[in-house]
């Protein structure tokens, strides 16, 4: 199943946020969206996931979703969006409650998602008892439980400290390794973008337009190698050179607002 941004534009009242953004996320592909702050990255993701109606253009799907997918487009949120009154297990089971699945099947799926994210021992804990990294793992387990075709990840690591980020990044690499799931990964962190993405969509500052689409040619497993580091850094520099001037302007603009 492909996800298509078809000439998407968006404005909030008088504020133009996105201007004619088009690209396609092919099945199993990971596309990162980077750009200066306030360029409409998160807005674009909300539109792609059907949580926001664009003022122009459309988000479209092409092809059938995987047969057993319960929610082909599934979000992973920056602030985790866990129900604080539910345990880890209940949070992961939450999106399954309203499906036609039987209780035994639901339990099996939750069990599997908890195991894949290393949460089996924390099933009875409440979100407030967990560290930020563990909370985001619950968010990821919840997403895995519905077998998404495409994960829509909205700065999933930006609320975490750098060590936790590194660990979760390794989890992402592992989860996306078999190509069964694609992802749209919104981030302001260029290192995350070059580590994960097959292609990187660089947006201009507001109103966000596509400045460039940068392919990453190495496989994700190659990028973990020591030797790959230099190439990735060069790529990061290339991206930064595309964004830097506008990031400065964007920052000044935010401060004047």
């Amino acid at each position, binding site marked *: 199943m492909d996800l298509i941004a078809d000439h998407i534009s968006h404005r909030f009242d008088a504020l133009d946020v996105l201007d004619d953004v088009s690209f396609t996320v092919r099945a199993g592909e990971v596309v990162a969206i980077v750009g200066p702050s306030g360029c409409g990255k998160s807005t674009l993701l909300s539109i792609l996931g059907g949580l926001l109606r664009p003022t122009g253009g459309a988000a479209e799907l092409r092809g059938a979703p995987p047969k057993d997918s319960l*929610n082909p487009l599934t*979000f992973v*949120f920056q602030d985790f969006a866990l*129900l604080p*009154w539910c345990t880890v297990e209940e949070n992961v089971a*939450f*999106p399954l*409650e*309203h499906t036609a699945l039987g209780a035994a099947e639901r339990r099996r799926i939750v069990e599997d998602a908890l195991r894949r994210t290393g949460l089996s021992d924390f099933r009875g804990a409440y979100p*407030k008892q967990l560290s930020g990294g563990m909370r985001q793992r619950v968010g990821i387990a919840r997403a895995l439980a519905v077998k998404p075709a495409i994960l829509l990840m909205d700065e999933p690591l930006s609320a975490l400290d750098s060590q936790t980020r590194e660990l979760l990044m390794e989890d992402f690499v592992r989860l996306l390794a078999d190509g069964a799931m694609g992802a749209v990964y919104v981030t302001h962190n260029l290192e995350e973008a070059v580590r994960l993405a097959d292609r990187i969509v660089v947006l201009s500052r507001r109103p966000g337009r596509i400045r460039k689409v940068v392919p990453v040619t190495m496989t994700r497993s190659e990028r973990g190698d020591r030797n790959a580091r230099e190439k990735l850094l060069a790529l990061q520099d290339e991206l930064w050179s595309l964004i830097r001037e506008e990031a400065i302007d964007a920052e000044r603009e935010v401060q004047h607002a």
Partner: protein
Amino acid sequence: MLERAPAETPSDIDTKPRPVEFRGAGFMPSTGRASGWVALALVIAVWQLAGSAEWVNPLFLPAPSAIAVATYKLAMSGALWQHLGWSVMRIGTGWLLGTVAGVIIGFAIGLSTLARGVGITFISALFPIPKIALLPLLILWLGIGEEPKIATIALGVFFSTAISVYSGVDAVPRNLIRMAQSFNVPFHAIVRRVIWPGALPSILAGFRITASVALLLVVSAEMIGAQYGIGAFVLQAGNLMQTDQLLAGVVILSLFGLAVGKLINLLEAKLLHWR
């Protein structure tokens, strides 16, 4: 001229380690309750002493022991339970009616644009009215039985409940609702599993307010027109200058308020343990 300590020589300052002055004291009152109980006991003891030594006329302020005896006698004669029973019935019925209506309307205002427009206008207009002022009107409408008293309490409870419920619904983090929508969770399930528990802290805080509103209104309503009930009893005792009985009634009201507060604490501990 003031004597001054001789200034330290520069060499002292350079070489001798000296402690960094602690500046972080205060602004952290601890939650110990012992001092509160001691103060309460002290006030009662002084009050008792004043009564026993006849420093004050017992007609105006009977000693705590006299109030305790009066309470005991009331309990033994059964009069206490009769009055309390009537008051509890009125509070219970009125509070329940007002709360159910308030929760329904509060949710409607929190969830629907139309209900919000209409509801907030009416609530803003009617909330400031002291509900006890409506009792005479309600007596005209509903007769002189229990109905107008219960309706007064229900009205008082309704407005506060509706306000705390829709503020609670408004305060549910939008990201949780978006999350549920992103998983295609149906509307009714979002209300039940996300909005209701999210609004519950505010709803329970509202219960605390409406419980005291209900107590205030039941006493006022009973003073205006009732034969039985703690309010009526306090008024009668006052008319007969039975100050010990009057204060016994006040003590009962205070205990009742405390008990309701404790009940809400328990409810919070049970329902909001996740906080």
